[in-house]
């Protein structure tokens, strides 16, 4: 009987061992080490840290989770409970994920804004370039254009190299440079194409046309970069020309690199051995009108008291360089100069005007698109 009892007890014990413990393990939550959630939590934490998102709190939870795992591992396996580690890893995962997503969202937004602004700046830049193609805007504006173009390209290069913070700063500057230049060009063109000036130039052109019924007349039109020879009230020849550094300005004094405007005539024809610039036609600048204006400007303090009026304004060769390079003269390509030289004589009238009113640059400047784009940013 005693043996039977003992056997029964042993049987119950064995049954407990083979069924009870696995059942207990199977049904008891958090008895197993939470490896999966820990791995996920670590991955997202590392990812966030790589992106430089705010992951300090998540990292803290992660380390606490690891500590708990170690603590639980020191217990007898039946008594282990990883629920707190699980919670800590879960918390770390949630925070790291949230911060990483926030950071990515912020980064995405910043990149979108950057690209939008870059496109706008490039659009403004291309508009300025188009204006340069159509009209001589002068050396100062051209230099600013080159610098702002380089800034814009640098911003784009930095972005492509993933140096985002510097690209952003560079773009801010490049955007302002391009926009300011555009505004400045627009203002100076508005002044240049004032109704009074356009009227005056139109009158001069009509006068030249009438005069051309009697003799060949030269008309230089600054904004179109052309020189026309008028004959019998019609255009007989057209040549491209280059000016000085301030092509749209009206010459007021020596050294301003501007080309005078008004009625002139050829006072000397310089052959091959008399000029450095192939052939040259010397104009009677300064004429009486120029002298009067010069004195008036001096009195008004618009130019320095020691300023000189300048002279030696010519139509000469050596043009075709692709830039405005003279000191205020009008330069033609040599073969054109030769032709022109033969068409003119001492006394040939030369009219220099700003515009004939044909250039549509100003109307393009009022294109709403550019301002619609730039004001949005």
């Amino acid at each position: 009987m005693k043996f039977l009892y003992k056997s029964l007890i042993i049987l119950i014990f064995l049954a407990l061992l083979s069924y009870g413990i696995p059942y207990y393990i199977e049904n008891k939550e958090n008895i197993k080490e939470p490896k999966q959630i820990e791995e996920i939590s670590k991955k997202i934490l590392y990812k966030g840290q790589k992106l430089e998102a705010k992951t300090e709190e998540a990292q803290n939870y992660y380390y606490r989770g690891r500590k708990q795992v170690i603590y639980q591992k020191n217990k007898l396996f039946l008594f282990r409970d990883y629920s707190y580690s699980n919670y800590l890893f879960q918390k770390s995962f949630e925070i790291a994920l949230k911060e990483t997503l926030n950071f990515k969202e912020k980064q995405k937004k910043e990149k979108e804004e950057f690209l939008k602004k870059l496109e706008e700046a490039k659009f403004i830049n291309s508009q300025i370039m188009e204006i340069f193609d159509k009209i001589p805007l002068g050396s100062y504006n051209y230099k600013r254009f080159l610098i702002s173009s380089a800034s814009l390209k640098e911003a784009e290069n930095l972005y492509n190299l993933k140096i985002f913070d510097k690209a952003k700063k560079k773009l801010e500057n490049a955007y302002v440079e391009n926009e300011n230049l555009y505004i400045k060009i627009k203002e100076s063109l508005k002044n240049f194409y004032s109704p009074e000036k356009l009227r005056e130039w139109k009158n001069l052109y009509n006068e030249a046309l009438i005069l051309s019924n009697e003799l060949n007349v030269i008309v230089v039109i600054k904004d179109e970069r052309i020189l026309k020879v008028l004959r019998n009230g019609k255009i007989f020849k057209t040549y491209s020309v280059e000016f000085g550094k301030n092509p749209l300005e009206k010459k007021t004094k020596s050294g301003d690199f501007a080309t005078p405007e008004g009625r002139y005539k050829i006072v000397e024809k310089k052959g091959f051995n008399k000029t450095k610039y192939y052939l040259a036609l010397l104009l009677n600048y300064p004429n009486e009108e120029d002298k009067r204006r010069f004195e008036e400007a001096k009195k008004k303090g618009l130019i320095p008291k020691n300023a000189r009026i300048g002279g030696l304004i010519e139509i000469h060769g050596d043009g075709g360089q692709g830039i405005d390079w003279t000191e205020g003269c009008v330069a033609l390509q040599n073969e054109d100069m030769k032709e022109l030289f033969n068409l003119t004589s001492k006394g040939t009238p030369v009219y220099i005007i700003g515009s004939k009113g044909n250039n549509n640059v100003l109307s393009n400047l009022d294109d709403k698109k550019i301002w619609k784009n730039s004001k949005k940013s």
Partner: protein
Amino acid sequence: MKYLRFIFLSIAILGLLACAKPPQAEIDAANAALTEAKNAEAEIYAPDSLKAAQTAIADMQAELDVQQGKFALFRSYEKAKELANAAKQAGEKAKSDAEAKKQQVKAEAETLMNEVKTALNEANDLMKKAPKGKGSKADIEALQADLGAVQPMIDQAQASFDAGKFMDAKTKLEEAKAKVSSVKDAINQAIEMSKGKKTAQGKKK
């Protein structure tokens, strides 16, 4: 006599158990490996490996803390020893990863240095070819200031390179490359514009 033998045996067993001490040599080796990894600039060149090593050290420390919290007779440092060895290996991996990456970045910086210097020379040559006016410098020379800023950037990068800060040198060179290439593009654009005007002149006649 029998009791006395039992007492001595108990004392001997207790003594042995009480002598369970932290595996100081392994702990020191693990910490040293982490320090070496940091000295090898693993933070810059192998951040993930460094984090793994730091986590391993934290695990080891946690195990040590657990054992320290136990009654002296029940302490066991076997697990701590295992963790210390794992931490040491992680530290060594971080160090070797950092060294390998550093060499890679060094090679990249060297290539980049040559590229930037070549690009700078090309930009300077382009600048010289720009058309000039009567007794005046070319308008393109407005970009000279931008181009002038590249050489100090190269010098700074060289200083970083010489000091073994290859990543820093590489970043500086990338910035220099961005600048010099932007100036080159602007010069080319200006030359193209000038050519465009020449072509237009030909057509207008």
